[in-house]
């Protein structure tokens, strides 16, 4: 099956709605599991990895929620396909580097994804738009409970689920949310926030996870510790912290509009100006400017423009997605030209931002506590 035919059109995924989605772009819960009788993927020889893959893959495919799923081995996917999956946050960069002996099973609406023989034998994740950590946990918990009946997991009553890296030991869970925080970045409050979140034992990462920068003011917040705390407690703890970050972001936006409105309008106006008129633009610059435009939509400077227009461009302008839309191999310079063409075309009917936000700042998106 051709992966690009299977994947949801970016226009559709950008229109998905969820609670607090003006700040929380997506929620994710990932579980790490291993089989009792095989070496972990990083240490197993190729025949053993293939044996594990051939055992796990059909079992995952047989889950009712994986009906009509996309399923393949990593050596059958092109570098471009793998990169597209990374850009959609469906697989890790580590998994994209895998080949024979590793596999992928992805359901049709891209809400459940299984990586086979990544760092662990099985990494499964549930994704949801907006802030829906509990729902994501329930989804993946059910899939895991169905799988444990057929797969012999490595589990110790003392240490929990045994994982290749001791940092995932115990529950093997990583609960995370992707946050758009332009207010905190512009208000120069992001560093203290990151520090205090770190102190709570949570990690803050960039757009593509571990060791990446926060392009487009997008940050991932996730739990770090997996042993000694139950899954539900971790989910709840993260929810509490996220509620606070959301509140801080809303307050930062409010304060900026009140006290530094010119600075904010200037940033947003310039972002629009470049995006709507550039003839060559890098992926990184595009993301950073799109982030400002997204803020502009949120505060009402672009009446009639839906946030999904920006979110769709967030996906479409990334290198692999851009390359996929063209048959010939593009150089980075060519991509920059085509990216600018595409963004100009998409923003053709978007009028320049209002000189100031209409009325008082729109109602704060405060989560219930």
């Amino acid at each position: 099956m051709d992966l690009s035919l299977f994947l949801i059109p970016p226009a559709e995924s950008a229109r998905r709605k969820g609670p607090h989605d003006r700040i929380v772009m997506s929620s994710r819960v990932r579980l790490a599991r291993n089989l009792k009788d095989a070496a972990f993927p990083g240490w197993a020889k190729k025949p053993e990895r293939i044996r594990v893959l051939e055992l796990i893959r059909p079992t995952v495919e047989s889950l009712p929620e994986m009906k009509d799923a996309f399923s393949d081995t990593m050596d059958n996917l092109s570098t471009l396909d793998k990169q597209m999956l990374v850009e959609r946050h469906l697989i890790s960069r580590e998994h994209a580097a895998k080949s024979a002996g590793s596999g992928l099973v992805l359901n049709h609406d891209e809400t459940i994804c299984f990586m086979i023989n990544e760092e662990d034998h099985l990494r499964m994740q549930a994704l949801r738009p907006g802030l829906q950590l509990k729902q994501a946990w329930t989804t993946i918990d059910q899939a895991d409970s169905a799988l444990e009946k057929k797969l012999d997991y490595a589990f110790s009553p003392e240490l929990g689920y045994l994982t290749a890296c001791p940092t995932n030991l115990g529950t093997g869970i990583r609960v995370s949310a992707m946050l758009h925080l332009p207010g905190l970045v512009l208000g120069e409050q992001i560093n203290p926030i990151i520090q205090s979140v770190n102190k709570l034992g949570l990690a803050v990462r960039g757009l593509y996870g571990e060791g990446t920068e926060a392009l487009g003011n997008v940050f991932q917040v996730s739990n770090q510790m997996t042993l000694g705390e139950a899954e539900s407690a971790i989910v709840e703890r993260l929810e509490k912290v996220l509620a606070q970050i959301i509140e801080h972001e809303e307050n930062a936006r409010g304060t900026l509009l009140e006290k530094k409105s010119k600075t904010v309008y200037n940033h947003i106006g310039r972002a629009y100006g470049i995006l709507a008129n550039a003839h060559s633009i890098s992926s990184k610059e595009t993301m950073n400017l799109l982030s400002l435009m997204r803020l502009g939509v949120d505060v009402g400077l672009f009446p009639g423009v839906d946030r999904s227009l920006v979110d769709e461009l967030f996906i479409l302008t990334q290198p692999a997605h851009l390359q996929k839309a063209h048959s010939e191999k593009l150089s980075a310079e060519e991509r920059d030209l085509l990216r600018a063409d595409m963004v100009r075309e998409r923003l053709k009917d978007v009028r320049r931002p209002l000189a100031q936000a209409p009325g008082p700042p729109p109602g704060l998106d405060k989560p219930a506590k």
Partner: protein
Amino acid sequence: MMCCVCKEKEATVHYTQIAGDKIQKVDLCEGCAKSKGVNDPMGFSLADLLLGLGASQEIEQAAGGSELKCPRCGFTQADFKKAGRLGCAECYHTFSEALGGLLKTMHKGTRHVGKVPEALRQSRDLSDRVKDLQDKLNKAIAAEDFEEAAILRDEIKQASARLSKAGVA
């Protein structure tokens, strides 16, 4: 700033590395830097940083000087030092002594709390039940309530049979 290893001399070598989830900053004096192999990037292992300085020494000590090797998968402490990951599920048993300290620094606790595979939970519940019934049986016998004891004995027999059927005695 003092060297964070010997805590005696002034630190002159400063090292920042993002290892896994953590940003690690290490300040060393020249002597310690040399002995840790900081000047040789290949020798300065990620695992040392990831798992805290001295992690590999801990493992070496736990092995009693000789190279500890997992009987199941052949993974050694040197491999762990290099990769920061283990070889197989059995490695947790093989290297348990050394891992204990690491897990303490890494996690909230050292005992698993949370989800347990259903099959295991059932057999755990069953064995709890057998224990419970056994206590009741002893009490009944002590109280010379033999009618009750007979009922309890049958229940224990049933529960034990189910337990051994589940494969975990």
